[in-house]
């Protein structure tokens, strides 16, 4: 008789609402994929009817389209324009507020408490992206209290991809398509004959608490496990894009003066979309505002981008005034200097920067061009 792994269970797709209810009973507000404005974006979920069942997406460089399918799958699509950073590293965050009183001023505490949130449908590349932001905000000398507050209250339900997108290259970045760790629960959606189920992997003690809120799930069989493995292999082979990462840091450091940057700058609009959709880009700007009477002041932190002139503005002007400077800076940080800074790559291979670049600049292609130009030198 086979010994079954207690941490691997089977959730029939028909029972998915029971699972969502268990999350709710455990005190979580669930956020997951929804169909809005002809795209799959993250928003509040209360039942399976909120999920884009019967929808999938098609992506290419600078192109995204959702389309109808006949499939009963709940997660039959890849990542959309949103990333989870909008719930952990907020696009606009009030840091503090102050009021004048007599001769001085006093701070007004922002007592907005952060509720428990469950992220449903976190792809392997996104789990990796969250881990990268954890490293920046939680594991360095300086801890970001706003991020920490949200992160500690977040329950991660990974969903392993059952198809690869045309702009995906997680296999090149070693982040997917299978989430090995960094989640509370991981789901793989499988259709096997007339069985439609989720292969559930329990990844944390918190997950056990949630699972206890619902009837006990049957243990997964070796056959089920094999189905998951086969699925992962197929998805890896179907990966839309790839990059060769050997010596990638050198590639950028040796090509600082390459003509390629000027050529890209003819196409790059420095509009900053790539950095906004990137799940690891973390830069912010800080704005101080006052009211007209000067009795109140607020300090806001907002997502910023290295593609703006203000980003590198110091006395005398911007450090990176040209489009070529700014594109080179961004891609070099993402693929090379991030290693120096954080001992890993800044890219998870989700392909968002390729899809959501309005003019379809493709980092995998640009890296190939650099590698080719280097080879001919």
């Amino acid at each position, binding site marked *: 008789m086979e010994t079954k792994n207690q941490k691997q269970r089977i959730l029939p797709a028909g029972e998915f609402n029971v699972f969502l209810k268990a999350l709710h009973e455990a005190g979580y507000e669930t956020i997951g994929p929804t169909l*809005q*404005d*002809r*795209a799959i*974006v993250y928003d509040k979920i209360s039942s399976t009817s909120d999920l884009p069942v019967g929808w999938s997406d098609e992506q290419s460089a*600078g*192109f*995204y*389209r*959702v389309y109808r399918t006949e499939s009963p799958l709940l997660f039959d699509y890849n990542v959309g*324009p*949103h990333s989870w950073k*909008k719930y952990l590293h907020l*696009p*606009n965050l009030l840091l503090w507020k102050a009021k004048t009183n007599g001769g001085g001023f006093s701070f007004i505490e922002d007592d907005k408490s952060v509720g428990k949130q469950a992220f449903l449908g976190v792809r392997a590349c996104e789990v990796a992206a969250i881990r990268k932001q954890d490293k920046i905000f939680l594991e360095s000398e300086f801890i970001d209290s706003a991020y920490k507050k949200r992160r500690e209250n977040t329950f991660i339900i990974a969903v392993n991809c059952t198809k690869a997108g045309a702009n995906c290259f997680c296999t090149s970045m070693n982040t997917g398509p299978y989430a090995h760790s960094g989640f509370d629960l991981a789901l793989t959606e499988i259709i096997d004959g007339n069985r439609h189920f989720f292969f559930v992997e329990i990844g944390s003690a918190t997950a056990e608490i949630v699972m206890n809120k619902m009837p006990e799930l049957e243990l997964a069989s070796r056959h089920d496990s094999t189905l998951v493995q086969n699925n992962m292999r197929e998805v890896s082979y179907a990966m839309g894009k790839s990059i060769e990462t050997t010596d990638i840091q050198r590639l950028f450091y040796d090509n600082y003066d390459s003509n390629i940057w000027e050529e890209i*700058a*003819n*196409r*790059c*609009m*420095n*509009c*900053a*979309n790539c950095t*906004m*959709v990137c799940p690891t880009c973390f830069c912010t700007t800080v*704005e*101080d*505002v*006052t*009211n*007209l*009477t*000067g009795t109140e002041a607020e300090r806001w932190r*907002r*997502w910023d*981008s290295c*593609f*703006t*002139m*203000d980003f590198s503005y110091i006395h005398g002007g911007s450090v990176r*005034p*040209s*489009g070529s400077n700014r594109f080179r800076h961004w891609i070099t940080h993402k693929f090379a200097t991030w290693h120096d800074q954080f001992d890993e790559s800044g890219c998870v291979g989700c392909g968002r920067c390729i*899809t*959501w*670049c*309005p*003019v*379809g600049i493709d980092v995998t292609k640009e890296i190939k061009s650099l590698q080719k130009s280097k080879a001919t030198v």
Partner: protein
Amino acid sequence: MSRTHKPKLAVWKFASCDGCQLSLLDCEDELLAFAEVIQIANFPEASRAVIQGKYDISLVEGSITTSHDAERIHKIRRQSKILITIGACATSGGIQALRNFTDVSRYTSIVYANPSYISTLNKSTPIRDHVYVDFELHGCPINKYQLIEVCSALLHGRAPITPSHSVCMECKRKGNVCVMVAHQTPCLGPVTHAGCDALCPSYNRGCFGCYGPKETPQTSSLAKKWKEIGATNDDIVRAFRGFYSYAEPFRKESEAYEEE
């Protein structure tokens, strides 16, 4: 700015539709606070009671289209400590700068029964072409919150927050789905100055470029993409020849497609 007295404000009009100065009256909730800290000394749209200059702050709306106005703006500059232009007309020549691409008599002969009564310059030009401008606030019309922001920054001696990056950043911070990538709707957002909080894309419309060119705009790349998603040369000329037609990056791009 010294806080020993309430700064005196004047609002001036040149060739324009009045929409930008109306933004000040539109402030409604903030208007009382505004009047508390700033003396509205000369604002004919709001009051006939005019207090003579000099003025600490002059808000200038409209473009220069007549020789009389070309003189008048110098008088205003001489009476103003700080001169701020508000809106597309004052900062770029406005929609009336369409005349700059042709002979103005072609318009006057169609519009007026007796064009001989019309005394106008051949070109509509921004205020900056005539006098020194301390600050330019963009938009057609301007955003009233940005106007308040500029005034409060001035009052409290800090830099105003009116970023010149793309509209795209406003879209993305709001969580909007990109209309160009997801719907193939031509949008000027990637080359347009932020400030409207991505009003049109928030309603699934392409950006019309009401805030003019952003910093370092790459218009040729955008125009090429527009063609790929089905825009004609005419569409491109018309898009760039809107409220900011005479702003150099938009002017050059429209001319490139007109010549083809």
